[in-house]
């Protein structure tokens, strides 16, 4: 496998340098910020476990499962760091096939609430393959765009990228998981932007997407999706129905105040008023229990993390590294704004997780893989740009 073959190659290439140089190129900050965010996520899982009345370390609680996934994430991160990312370009097409396969599998055998198909059960674990598909999409797109280096400002490159994103986006939409399909769109936009694509064509593309919105609204969206999308705009929301989560989340956030109520003291979460407090609405719990301070700390960690991701991209001497970093940064940014914005009532309700923090195995593992690949990019540049 790649891991075994790539490792000695790195050592020989850098024979003149010490192993310490590679270690210096490893971005400790990036890992630290991500680690802190995961820690916050675990704390939230802990407080939710306490509030649901069970011992946090018991098997099966949100917290113990979170710990297990964090351990798995660390392993994945280390493996991805060790793996020479250049192989990914070679493997792009198989990876694309794998991505489509996972999504089709989800549609075929997936379970979900209310007739949707989002989770696939693997033994005792449930797995949301669409989370993994996001990272795979970034790899595929980065490989494709890197292969078109020199022609990146042409319309053909943009169309090619759109064609690549199209099938997985549609497959996710069919689940139906509107949120994740929007993430695909954000990844595409961010990577095209960073690839130096022609501004003119990007503008045309943006106008085209805008024009599609009314069509999608009329023909593609389910009624419940529409209800969730517009409930945040409603001044007198149906608080017993589609606006219920939102209303309860806002009460939770508002009651947190400056310093919060303290961990495990959130009454909104304790009372189970937030139906998906451990996942999509985790920020509401955080804002209620840790207050404005906690929210600011979270934001700062995210900004620093995105900064380090962008730095990795900047330092990369090859297009793949730059583009991959752009994809990861776009994904984190988009999910942060949409997820937190949803809790704060300024974004529609979509099932997008908060990266690293949301309790959800697939999301955490795929983020770990993404950061691992970034570290792999970091340590495989001979000269740091800054």
């Amino acid at each position, binding site marked *: 496998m790649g891991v075994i073959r790539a490792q000695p190659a790195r050592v020989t290439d850098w024979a003149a340098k010490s192993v310490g140089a590679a270690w210096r190129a490893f971005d400790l900050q990036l890992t630290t910020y991500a680690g802190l965010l995961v820690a916050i996520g675990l704390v939230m899982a802990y407080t939710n476990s306490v509030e649901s009345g069970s011992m946090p370390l018991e098997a099966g609680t949100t917290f113990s499962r979170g710990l297990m996934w964090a351990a798995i994430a660390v392993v994945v991160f280390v493996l991805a760091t060790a793996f020479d990312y250049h192989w990914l370009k070679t493997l792009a097409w198989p990876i694309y096939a794998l991505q489509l396969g996972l999504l089709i599998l989800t549609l075929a055998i997936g379970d979900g609430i209310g007739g949707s198909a989002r989770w696939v059960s693997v033994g005792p674990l449930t797995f949301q393959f669409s989370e993994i598909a996001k990272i795979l999409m970034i790899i595929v797109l980065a490989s494709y765009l890197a292969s078109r280096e020199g022609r990146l400002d042409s319309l053909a490159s943009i169309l090619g990228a759109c064609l690549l994103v199209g099938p997985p986006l549609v497959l996710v939409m069919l689940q139906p998981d509107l949120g994740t399909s929007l993430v695909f769109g954000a990844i595409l936009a961010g990577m095209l932007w*960073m690839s130096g694509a022609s501004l003119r064509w990007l503008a045309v593309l943006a106008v085209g997407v805008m024009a599609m919105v009314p069509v999608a609204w009329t023909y593609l969206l389910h009624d419940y999706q529409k209800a969730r999308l517009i409930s945040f705009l409603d001044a007198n929301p149906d608080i017993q129905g589609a606006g219920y989560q939102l209303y309860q989340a806002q009460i939770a956030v508002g*009651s947190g105040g400056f310093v919060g109520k303290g961990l495990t003291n959130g009454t909104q979460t304790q009372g189970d*008023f937030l139906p998906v407090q451990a996942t999509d609405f985790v920020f509401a719990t955080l804002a209620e229990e840790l207050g404005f301070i906690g929210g600011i700390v979270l*934001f700062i960690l995210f900004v620093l993390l995105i900064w380090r991701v962008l730095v990795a991209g*900047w330092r*990369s*001497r090859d297009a793949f590294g730059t583009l991959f970093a752009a994809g990861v940064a776009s994904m984190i*940014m988009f999910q942060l704004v949409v997820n937190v*914005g949803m809790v704060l009532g300024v974004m529609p309700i979509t099932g997008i997780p908060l990266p690293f923090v949301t309790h959800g195995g697939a999301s955490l593992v795929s983020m770990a893989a993404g950061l691992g690949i970034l570290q792999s990019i970091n340590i495989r540049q001979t000269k740091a740009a800054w």
Partner: protein
Amino acid sequence: MSVFLDDRPKPIRSLSRFLAFALIVIVGVSGLTARLFYLQIVDGGRPTTLSARNRTVIDAIRSPRGVIYDREGRALVTNVPTFVVKLRPSDMPLDQRPVVVDRLAALLGMTAAEINAIIDGNPGSTFDLVRIAGDVDRLTAQLISEAGADLPGVEVAVEARREYADGPLMSQILGYSAPISGDQLKTLKDAGYLPDDLIGKVGIEAEYETLLRGVYGSESVERDASGRRSQVLQTIAEARPGDSLTLSIDTKEQQYAQKAMLWAMKEVGIKRGVVIVMNPQTGEVLALVSLPSYDNNIFARGISNADYAKLLKNPDKPLLNHAIQAHYPPGSTYKLVAGTGVLADKKITSKTKVQTKGYLTLGSTKFYDWNHRGFGACDIYCGFGHSSDTFFFQMAGKLGIDRLGYWAKQYGFGKPTGIDLPGEVAGIVPTNEWKQDVLGSPVFPGETYQAGIGQGYDVVTPIQLINAYAALANGGTVYQPQIVRDVVGPDGTIVRPFKPKVLQKMAVPSSVLSIMRNAARSTVTLRHTYNLVDLPIKVAGKSGTAEFGTRDRKGRLPFHSWFVGFVPKDVRHGSFDGTDSQLIVLAFAYDSRTKGNVATEIVKYYLQQHFGIKKDYRLPNLLKRGNFYQSN
């Protein structure tokens, strides 16, 4: 890989694009920060100052249900406070459920299985309150209230229950309100009904549900850790109290009517009966008694399955309003239709005499008069006054079944009167077309004969019959009977004043109805109704004896007794040439089996009470058990 060092392509990175990206990140996160700051710091004082451990839910504000008054302004139903025990399943931790249910069962004197069934049968979501028990006594309510921490999710609420002042006297009119059923909730949830709501189920309570209920408001309410309300934070929408109703029913008249019926029931052993009193000029119903009745307070308090089963099993159907929800053969009272028809269609005049006999022969069948001697040559006054069957066999024969049906419909038979009570049935007016549709053959001449004396396929409800005679009394206007006079708004102003509703004007010359009124008067004056003529008031009317069911060993059929009578406005000196009658009374005695007509005695007794006639004209010896047809 070594190639990688030497032949490195120029990076595609662009500083401006990186900076633009960074700018978007900064703007996005700043926006989130600003919003968080607004929610938690600027706007955040509101919820936090209240209580750190309190939680907020949206509750409905129930509107007080409208009250119902009789025409004199006496309250027939009031809202009384009562303790109700409810449970919000989402506030009851699952692992504690068995303990909580057991405790609650012990306190309420119910079984755990009953409570579990109620919780699991809850049609709403787990966030909705489930009504466990109503009308809980004060001590139990206090105990449950104080055991709050041991009974998570359980709430004691003070709610209004309907208290019906007169119970069985008015229950056939008022009906009752009771907890909403799962099926009803499914259809009414969108209209704002709650899983633990009350709803009018039958009678006026059901008919006027929307008005009585008003409009529920909503408020956000803070609840303490055990789930009980501690404070109202904000009223989102005010509740609008329900409208009140003033009935045309007069409690006094209702009591007279019930007393008259109960007397006959006791005297003769009748099991079912109806008395209706109306004003023929407006269609107002002054009294409506259907016996046996039931106590609607039992339903309002939450009826037990055993009690309900007992009511359902009673063969005399106390839950059925026999005045409107059942139809019966009208007997001789139906001769009004044939009489009006032959006069209006000019088959006879008021002077025409027809030979009456002991029986008529049609083919090989003999059609007997109730008087096996006949009455000789009779005009309409004689024929109607003596209720001669052979007279009306001939009248029906002259008209034919379809004209007979036409005139029945002119009087409003064959379709519901539209009285403002639910569940009214239509009755049947047989015609050739009807019989062809339902039974697949045309009407035979003998059946036309029978229809002419109200013994054929024709069936009527008591309300239809009195309404037809009311049209006779008022000169040909069929009104819609009305129980509710005025709708009174929450502030006491009348929002919908009483207005008579005309169903139809009969297409008949007023002279014909004048003849028929005087023919009805001759029923009294010819002493067909015994001593009714001796009363110091003038009564016109018609009795009916309607056979039904199967013959006994002696070949006799059981029969119902009918009487419907009306008085002129000037009850002592008035005349039936006029159309000014203000009072019409109907009595119906199911399966009466007496020598005389018990319904006449019931109406007589009612009139004595109504007009304060001291002397008692009742004839108890006529009520001895026997058979009217056999004794004549």
